[in-house]
């Protein structure tokens, strides 16, 4: 992508956007939307398998009912935002597998799919346990100087950095 924003530009724009979100009385997050979506899907198949309150109970979500919430609409917006970015600025075909992944693991779409699925699975388990994700704990929580966000943020990089180095820096530093 030719016109990529520097981290400074991105940081300023996001910083301001996030302030606007706080002024509106809301905050960034995605895990509640995941919980609600999973809840909706499960409810579709079985009314009583898992009580509705379980989806939003505990550390993710603040209401006891399944509903298309503010955060769900935010997440829908994120999807549209990515789409818009591609439509306005993207050129050419969107890759199926990232090139660096191919360099490391070979041209194996099914392995990439497996990695992607397992990665998502692991992240949401971690997010449910932690009570949030990078958006809610780090971008939103750390802006409020939240202890929960600070602990989560440090922990993510404490395991993510060694994990990535182990996975990807096999061919020497």
């Amino acid at each position, binding site marked *: 992508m030719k016109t990529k*924003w520097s981290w400074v530009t991105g940081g300023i724009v996001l910083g301001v956007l996030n302030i606007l979100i706080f002024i509106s009385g809301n*905050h960034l997050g995605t895990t509640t939307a995941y919980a609600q979506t999973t809840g909706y899907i499960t409810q579709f198949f079985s009314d009583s398998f898992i009580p509705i309150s379980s989806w939003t109970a505990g550390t993710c979500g603040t209401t006891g009912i399944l509903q298309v919430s503010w955060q769900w609409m935010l997440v829908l917006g994120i999807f549209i935002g990515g*789409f818009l970015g591609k439509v306005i600025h993207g050129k050419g075909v969107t890759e199926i597998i990232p090139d660096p992944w191919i360099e490391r693991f070979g041209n194996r779409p099914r392995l990439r799919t497996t990695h992607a*699925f397992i990665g998502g699975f692991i992240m*949401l388990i971690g997010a449910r346990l932690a009570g949030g994700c990078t958006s809610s704990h780090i971008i939103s929580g750390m802006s409020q100087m*939240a*202890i*929960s966000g600070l602990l989560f943020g440090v922990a993510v*990089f404490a395991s993510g950095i060694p994990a*990535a180095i182990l996975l990807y820096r096999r061919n020497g530093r």
Partner: protein
Amino acid sequence: MSLLLAVIFGIGFGYILYRVGGLDYRNIINALTLKDLSIPKFMILSVAITSVGIFSLRLIGLVSLDVITANPLGNILGGLIFGIGFALVGYCPGTSIGAMGEGKKDARYTVLGGIAGVFIYTLAQQYTGFSIAAFDIGKLNLVDIIHLNSFSVAIIYSIALVLVIYMVDYWEQKKSSIN
């Protein structure tokens, strides 16, 4: 209407992530392998700016906080687990949604995996009754630890974050001039 605003904010967030390269697997992996820390710097800079902004506005009652309850076991263990998944796939729950919008086919599997993860977690919670709520220690932030007024703490905090960013930046530039 509030929900429409949510979509608009989301579009803004998704678009920013796209433009800064946050939806790109290689930028996340480069960050986690310490080759290019642009994405973490971007995140932390936004935090520093938002922090000063919201704690100023809070003084005039325009913003109220909504802090996630601190639960050291959950926050730390959950974060450690999260980091492994993050390193494996190069997306987070939010960026995978944006990447899916962008048309990246691998991202949809991350979202599906995430939904499966929530399902299994909730199922496990339901059938074992496990709960870590006992470790909740309240909606704490740094003001509860540093006993100054919150605006001052926010200023000190933001300055500290910016210093860390610039130290990292300096380290990166030295590293690349050595190579």
